[in-house]
């Protein structure tokens, strides 16, 4: 069986054109799909939209509900009769009069061409985001961020030294306003809070960052820190690491914008060089070290030599101590005697006929602090002196039976002069009230008129007396030689050996007595059995390690890194001078 289908179309001249086709079969699919026998190419038509079935009883159309209209009414299936009109999407299919021999004839009328408004409809509905252009937003975001975070912060530098192209009347105002505003934006570049001491610079980045795109130079630092010392003399740093070290900038260790502290305290930094110090400075006299508790060498003490005032001996502690570990102070002193738990003789008791007793019948027990007092900043001890510490007990009375006057301490010449004058006065008959007339000294009768010869004779007698007393002082009575080495000099006089007592034993250490005041003196300084002034009672490193450990914390111990006892900027010369010597030729290039 064949049916006749007539497609109506409009040709290019706008005239209707008819195209007849014969299609064989008994069932005909109508749809958009190309396999359909009746092909209706339009998106509004489904792939398989409807179906026409031819049987002996007639022609039927069937479709899913809502898809077709037969004669203007929706239908799921209908018998087709001549004159019926079927609406399929935009197409109209008319049932024509059946020609002979054909069961069905159809005319397919296409939709009228889409009107302009419908043509515009689709793109209008499909148009996306008409008012949100990503491109425009991106330009906006990029530009504004660049303005806020790059251009405005850098504006004061760009305007530096340039005249603004504005009238003079406003220039002064603008030249103040622009930096003030722009500085606020420059602060967005600040990576972190300045250390407390540098907060004085405020917004002035160029105080330290002198040149753009150049790291902070030491010159910026020493502009203020003029008195800072170098670490060690630069010329000693001839090793590989040493040379690398000389290139270290201040800011390599002192990193600012990291909070309120600017001091690095990491002994790894020290150990970089000091784990093999000869590698940095081949002539270094110190030994290698990485940590206080593991490999710190024994201490070196700075010892003096009273007979050679320019010599400072650096002697390392050892067990047993080396022969050099002796203090050569030219003094005689017996700590054991002075610290006798039974006490020492009291000076007042010596005049007591009953014996060595004071008013309360006791000897005086001395404590360390009776002679050793801390200095003003609590770090070292004040030097022991005759006037302050010894004289209370050790009298310099030259003739106790005659007078309790004492000779001055310190100069042999002054003593000689004083005694000659004293005895001359007595011989010449002037007797002060605090003096008992010495029996072995002839005196001039008061009121006598003396000839020149008489005077000379009297003074000679006085000199002889003075010489006798001097000999007693220096030799027989052992007043001076109790503590001093006394010898006769060429001119027949006496000479007391010069005295030098060490006050700073460890000049490179930051030891402070005040910080250790919780401890008794004897914890570290064991002098109870010392009978000689040459004995040295400086504690050794093992004593320190009883309380102190290295940089790694240990329970009940004091954590101590290098900086606990040592200062970095402990060199001889100022950093400034070293810098000028080293860097000036470089910058002059």
């Amino acid at each position, binding site marked *: 069986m064949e049916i006749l289908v007539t497609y109506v179309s409009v040709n290019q001249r706008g005239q209707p054109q008819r195209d007849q086709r014969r299609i064989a079969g008994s069932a005909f699919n109508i749809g958009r799909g190309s396999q359909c026998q009746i092909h209706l190419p339009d998106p509004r038509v489904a792939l398989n939209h409807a179906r026409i079935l031819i049987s002996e009883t007639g022609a039927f159309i069937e479709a899913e509900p*809502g898809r077709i209209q037969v004669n203007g009414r929706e239908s799921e299936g209908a018998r087709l009769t001549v004159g019926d009109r079927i609406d399929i999407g935009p197409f109209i299919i008319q049932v024509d009069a059946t020609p002979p021999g054909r069961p069905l004839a159809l005319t397919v009328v296409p939709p009228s061409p889409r009107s302009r408004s419908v043509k515009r409809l*689709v793109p209008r509905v499909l148009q*996306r985001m008409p008012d949100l252009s990503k491109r425009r*937003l991106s330009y906006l975001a*990029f530009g504004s961020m*660049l303005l806020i*975070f*790059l251009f405005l912060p850098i504006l004061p530098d760009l305007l530096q030294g340039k005249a603004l192209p504005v009238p003079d009347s406003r220039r002064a105002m603008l030249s103040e306003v622009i930096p003030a505003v722009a500085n606020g934006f420059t602060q967005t570049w600040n990576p972190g809070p300045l250390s407390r001491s540098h907060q004085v610079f405020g917004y002035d980045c160029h105080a330290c960052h002198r040149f753009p*795109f150049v790291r902070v130079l030491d010159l910026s630092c020493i502009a203020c820190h003029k008195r800072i010392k170098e670490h060690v003399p630069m010329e000693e740093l001839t090793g590989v690491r040493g040379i690398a070290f000389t290139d270290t900038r201040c800011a390599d260790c002192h990193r600012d914008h990291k909070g309120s502290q600017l001091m*690095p305290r990491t002994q790894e930094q020290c150990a970089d060089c000091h784990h093999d110090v000869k590698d940095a400075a081949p002539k270094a006299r110190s030994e290698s070290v990485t940590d206080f508790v593991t490999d710190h060498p024994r201490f070196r003490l700075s010892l003096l030599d009273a007979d050679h005032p320019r010599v400072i001996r650096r002697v390392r502690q050892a067990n047993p101590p080396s022969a050099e570990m002796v203090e050569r102070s030219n003094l005689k002193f017996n700590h054991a005697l002075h610290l006798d738990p039974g006490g020492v003789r009291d000076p007042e008791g010596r005049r007591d006929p009953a014996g060595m007793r004071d008013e309360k019948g006791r000897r005086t027990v001395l404590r360390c602090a009776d002679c050793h007092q801390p200095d003003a900043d609590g770090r070292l001890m004040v030097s022991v002196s005759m006037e302050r510490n010894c004289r209370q007990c050790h009298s310099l009375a030259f003739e106790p039976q005659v007078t309790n006057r004492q000779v001055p301490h310190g100069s042999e010449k002054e003593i000689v002069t004083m005694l000659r004058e004293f005895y001359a006065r007595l011989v010449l008959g002037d007797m002060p009230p605090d003096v008992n007339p010495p029996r072995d000294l002839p005196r001039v009768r008061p009121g006598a008129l003396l000839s020149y010869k008489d005077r000379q004779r009297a003074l000679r007698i006085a000199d002889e007396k003075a010489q006798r007393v001097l000999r007693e002082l220096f030799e027989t009575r052992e007043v001076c030689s109790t503590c001093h080495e006394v010898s006769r000099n060429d001119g027949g006089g006496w000479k007391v050996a010069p005295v030098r007592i060490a006050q700073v034993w460890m000049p490179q250490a930051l030891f402070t007595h005040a910080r250790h005041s919780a401890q008794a003196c004897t914890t570290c300084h064991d002098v109870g059995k010392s009978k000689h002034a040459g004995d040295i009672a400086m504690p050794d490193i093992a004593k320190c390690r009883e309380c102190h450990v290295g940089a790694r914390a240990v329970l009940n111990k004091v954590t101590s890194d290098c900086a606990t006892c040592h200062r970095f900027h402990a060199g001889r010369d100022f950093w400034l001078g070293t810098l000028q010597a080293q860097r000036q030729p470089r910058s002059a290039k």
Partner: protein
Amino acid sequence: MSQQQSILEYKNGRYLKLAIGLCALAIGAYLWYEPTTVYVKPNGGTWLGYTLGTIGAVLILWLMLLGVRKRRYRSRAGSLQGWTSAHVYIGTSLLVIVTLHCAFEFGWNVHTAAYVLMVLVIVSGFFGVYAYLRYPALMTANLHDAQVETIVLKIADLDRKCRRMALDLPDEVNEIVMKSSRASLREPRVRTSFRRRLAGDTVHCPTRDACAALTRIGAKFTGESASLNQQLLTAMTQKSVMIDQLRRDRRYRAILEIWLVAHVPLSFALLATLIAHVVSVFYFW
């Protein structure tokens, strides 16, 4: 098979492994570096900091090149799917790399601004991945086989039909239909659509209102008017269904686009801030 593979599973997660490796490397370097050199606490100014920062900056530039690559249809520099997969994973790894670069140092400055912008870009990207995994399937399910264009044309046809049918009905009905017809294809703009999505799709739709009104009014009609009204109601309901379909589709499309409206401009803001960050660090070195 390969067409249904999501960008997350591209080549068995090749770029996921790459990103994890990158993060592990960065974390390892950070942990190894920190205890040996403790001049100050870790920061972006150490050599590891500079290294991580450089890697981060290069990656950001490369990630932004996806916008160029996806417009070069003829490019042979890897498949776009591969690029996108790498974009997602490498972009995520930046969270780790850049956080280690700044060593958890934050403040009110350009440096943290760049970091925050980067995080915003990445988070908006996460939403994009979520949207791309979820909404295309919903869109297909929503439209069945039809195309948007078809639905638009069908709505236009139905509109015409309804207007014709309404001609024979009272003015009241005619007015309702005209009102719906005027409004139905003025599809709400994206912003409305996005807001509606947040509001749970309760919208004042003239067509839906018209259906309700026709039902109410239709109860009064008898005879021919009643059946005509019934037909009109059927057509209007069909239109209403299609409009809803179209609206849902527009909504899904809007979601698929809206995140990019944040992602792309934010990434350009990030680029500008990154430039400022790098310049500022070395300007005041």
